[in-house]
């Protein structure tokens, strides 16, 4: 019998704590596969955020640090500047990166830190119970926008990738979605490229935004959540490469 699919070594053989239908498991796998494909496990240090993926170090078998909410890009700066030979990545959700950590991600990009950021956008705060995030789309109902997000009251959803793409220090920005096998394969290529740039010492920050399902706090079945990404989320957050590095 031929093995056509198996666990990648950097992904631990353990059940995750994520809800059924959550996208974190897929995103973890993409990161783990990339680390193994590039054979950089021995020199990679990961940064776990505050949020649902705070325990990412239980699933990814690399050296990892857990940091204060939103501060991962600053911590990554401290690590990369003192260890230029190491591969430093942060894994952050939308509350972490787009709200409380906005200053840190903007300035890390602005300084052109040679780090890789995996940005999970599920348009909601998961761990704290489904509150509105900066990325919550208009009319989306959450624990703190019970009448749906209104532009006059809570403002428009924040498009972080578009914003970061304006900065010269950000050299690669791409938005992908975890909503179909084809899209996941595309996401894998993007994650791979983002890490490769760092391996090749490319002069700046690389970030991949992944639109990821949160059936629990979208109050949907996992299948409906996938549909909602395709039919709604992508309208606000169009997929594609916003910026690429040409050497």
């Amino acid at each position, binding site marked *: 019998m031929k093995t056509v699919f198996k666990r990648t070594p950097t992904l631990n053989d353990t059940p995750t704590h994520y809800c059924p239908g959550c996208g974190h498991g897929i995103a973890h796998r993409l990161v783990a596969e990339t680390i193994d494909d590039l054979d950089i*496990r*021995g*020199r*990679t*240090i990961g*940064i*776990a955020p505050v949020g649902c993926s*705070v*325990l990412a*170090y239980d699933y990814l*078998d*690399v*050296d*990892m*640090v*857990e*940091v*204060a909410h939103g*501060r991962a890009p*600053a*911590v*990554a*700066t*401290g*690590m990369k*500047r*003192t*260890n230029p030979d*190491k591969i430093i990545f942060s894994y952050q959700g939308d509350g972490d990166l787009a709200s409380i950590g906005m*200053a*840190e991600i*903007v*300035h890390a990009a*602005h*300084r052109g830190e040679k780090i890789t950021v995996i940005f999970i956008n599920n348009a909601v705060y998961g761990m704290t119970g489904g509150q509105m995030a900066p990325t919550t789309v208009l009319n989306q109902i959450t624990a703190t926008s019970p009448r749906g997000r209104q532009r006059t009251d809570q403002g428009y959803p924040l498009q972080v990738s578009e914003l970061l793409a304006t900065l010269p220090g950000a050299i690669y920005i791409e938005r992908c979605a975890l909503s179909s096998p084809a899209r996941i394969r595309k996401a894998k290529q993007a994650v791979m490229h983002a890490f490769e740039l760092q391996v090749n010492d490319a002069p700046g920050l690389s970030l991949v935004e992944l639109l990821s399902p949160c059936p629990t706090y979208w109050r949907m079945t996992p299948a409906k959540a996938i549909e909602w990404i395709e039919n709604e989320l992508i309208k606000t957050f169009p997929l594609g490469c916003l910026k690429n590095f040409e050497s």
Partner: protein
Amino acid sequence: MCGNEALAEAAIIAGVDAYFGYPITPQNEIPAYMSRRMPEEGRVFVQSESELAAINMVYGASATGKRAMTSSSSPGISLMQEGMSYLAGAELPAVVVNVMRGGPGLGNIAPSQGDYYQSTRGGGHGDYRTIVLAPSGVQEMADCMPLAFDLADEYRMTVLVLADGILGQMMEPVALEKKPRRKLPPKDWALTGIQDREQRIVRSLRLEEGVLEKLNYKLQAKYDKVRENEVLCEQYKVDDADIVVIAFGIAARVVRSAVNKARKEGIKAGWIRPVTLWPFPTEQISRAAEQFRIFLTVEMNCGQMVDDVKLAVAGRVPVLFYGRPGGGILSADEILEKIRQLTFPPKKR
């Protein structure tokens, strides 16, 4: 050299790998000096976007086993408290310099000692301590840096150097020399890439039942060890003194002049100067309180360290306070006047 520059060069001699900081008066000479000298040494200097970022850059560098520091002044140190709490929870070494200014709020840029409480009580959230060194001259600004880095590495703690605007700005001759390091434990927790070993995780989240409690007891055992071994304190003419004046940092320099003047007038005055504010020299002060005498605590604030003096004295002798807050600078003559008032019968001019 001014105090800030002496401190910066001493940090370089002590082997600091990375400096991260954000501009704020009256400590701007430190980042300016570091921005020139660190690249010369092939080391890291980053001007961060905020104090929040600076302390987290320190956290990142420290997590990989590097010697890292930041410096700021009171309002900026307030912003760093989140990071210092995480450093404590993750047991990472760090050196943080606070060149204090007047507060609360934006306050002013005049020298102050208003951050004693914040410095000696942990400062951020949770049950933790930082070691606090309080230099009282430019030479000591330099001398405390190798000690600060060694203490940080030995105990995996934040060491806070608590200076003030005068110490940062004043110029005095200073001898800079490389001091031998303490024998330090290996950093077998540092994140260096997994290579051929097991995964390492630096974290402060302990969700499992009872695990956080255990960590806290471990931290407290470490703090007890620090209390036992690392108290530093200077004393002068305490043995025969009727009045013992207690002060730290720049205030202790002024107190020293006042006590010398009092002695010339025949008043039996002495002084005690805590060099470590945490751990506090409780035993030394307690011993001095065994004989009947009056204690006078002098601070450039409205009375903060005086609480620790009272705890040490435990009601055995009177503890009085004299201080000036908000950037008011003490003079030796006003302290001398206070000492005169406390003598019996009161000394008239």
